[in-house]
């Protein structure tokens, strides 16, 4: 059972320049996994170019995404991921495995720091792993990230109109994984 805990207050900066202090809570597993993921993504950091929108030490990454809308989307996706995490085995009536909690927690943590112009939504694969799908139909871009049960590694896929698709797997701080996510527009 994950204990719910308060991380602290966070200053959120909205698109119109106003700010609001909000209490940030999460469950302990999500927080632990989240810190690890952010550490991985920030590792060889180009942090000078990253604009944190939470004034927490493990603040977000990305650019130009300081809006209430971004926060709303993140919240909606995390709510949905938490709902998916509670599904039983065979939730699809076609034999899908029960969700893997560590995988879903990793996805929630990732979303907590996600800044992208791509539309995105979460789902589960047949083996219970969390997946986030990104899509820009107008520009023919589709990408997904599958979070492995170890909560450290991912599989990333990118398909762009007119180009050969790409698939990479490994830790989130692996250069090839980061580069693919960057080419997709998932991270800066």
């Amino acid at each position, binding site marked *: 059972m994950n204990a719910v805990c308060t991380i602290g207050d966070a200053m959120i900066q909205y698109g119109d320049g106003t700010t609001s202090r909000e209490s940030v809570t999460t469950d302990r597993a999500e927080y632990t996994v989240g810190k690890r993921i952010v550490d991985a993504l920030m590792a060889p950091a180009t942090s000078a170019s990253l604009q944190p929108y939470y004034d927490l030490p493990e603040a977000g990454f990305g650019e130009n995404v300081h809006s209430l809308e971004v926060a709303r989307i993140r919240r909606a996706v995390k709510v949905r991921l938490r709902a998916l995490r509670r599904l039983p085995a065979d939730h699809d009536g076609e034999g899908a495995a029960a969700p893997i909690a560590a995988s879903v927690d990793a996805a929630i943590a990732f979303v907590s720091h996600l800044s992208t112009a791509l539309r995105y*939504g979460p789902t589960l694969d047949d083996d219970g792993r969390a997946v986030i799908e990104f899509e820009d139909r107008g520009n023919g871009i589709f990408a997904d990230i599958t979070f492995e049960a170890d909560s450290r590694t991912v599989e990333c896929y990118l398909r762009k109109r007119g180009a050969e698709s790409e698939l990479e797997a490994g830790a989130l701080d692996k250069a090839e994984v980061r580069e693919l996510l960057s080419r997709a527009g998932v991270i800066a």
Partner: protein
Amino acid sequence: MNGELATKAASNEASCQATFNGREECDKLADYIESNHPDCACEKFRVSPASSEPVADIEEVYRVAVSPRDIDQDGVLMVRPFEKVAREGVSVIRSISSPEQFGTLVCDGLYSKPGDPLKSIQKVYTVPVGGTDGIRAQKAGEGARLFGVYDQVVSRTKKEELPVPTHAGIFLRLPPPGTANRRKIQKDYAGQLREMFLNRELPIDGAYEGLLTKLNERAAASEFVLKAEDGE
């Protein structure tokens, strides 16, 4: 490429049924079908004894999204569930279904166990099987067909009940095992199949004269919660 496969016995109704029988949840069924009956050879035969006839080109198939994972928070159809096409197949309902058969198959997807979240019909899509924009017309770069559509009848949620003869399965046949970047290519084709369905969404009350709306009302009233005696 198919030299080894060419040595397989000729496909016929019995051999096709032997391939499908008891493997509806086998995650290697797509490969198994192609290795035993290349080039969608079983499309010409009934692959399930309970089926009335093979799936014809003039038919359409419905995909009814009932699992919470099928549709995201914005109502968008997710791609990942379509990756089943390379494993145990994508489950669809044939347009030759009577309203009763269609309703029964949808109800089977709506059942949940006591205490589990209730399900509902979120979206419904329909795609032609044959024709220039049909599933069977989808080709790989070299011109080989991508998908087979079979009259695969599946067991019911309540196992003791008679199967419905108008279920079908869609299976990916390419690329063969051992192909470089196979998983990536399978994901490409699964995305292509999803795109076909995405472009053919029906209003919930547009299929079978509002039947799905009525089923959603029954689902919301917990009519599809299994009882202890409905054990699998």
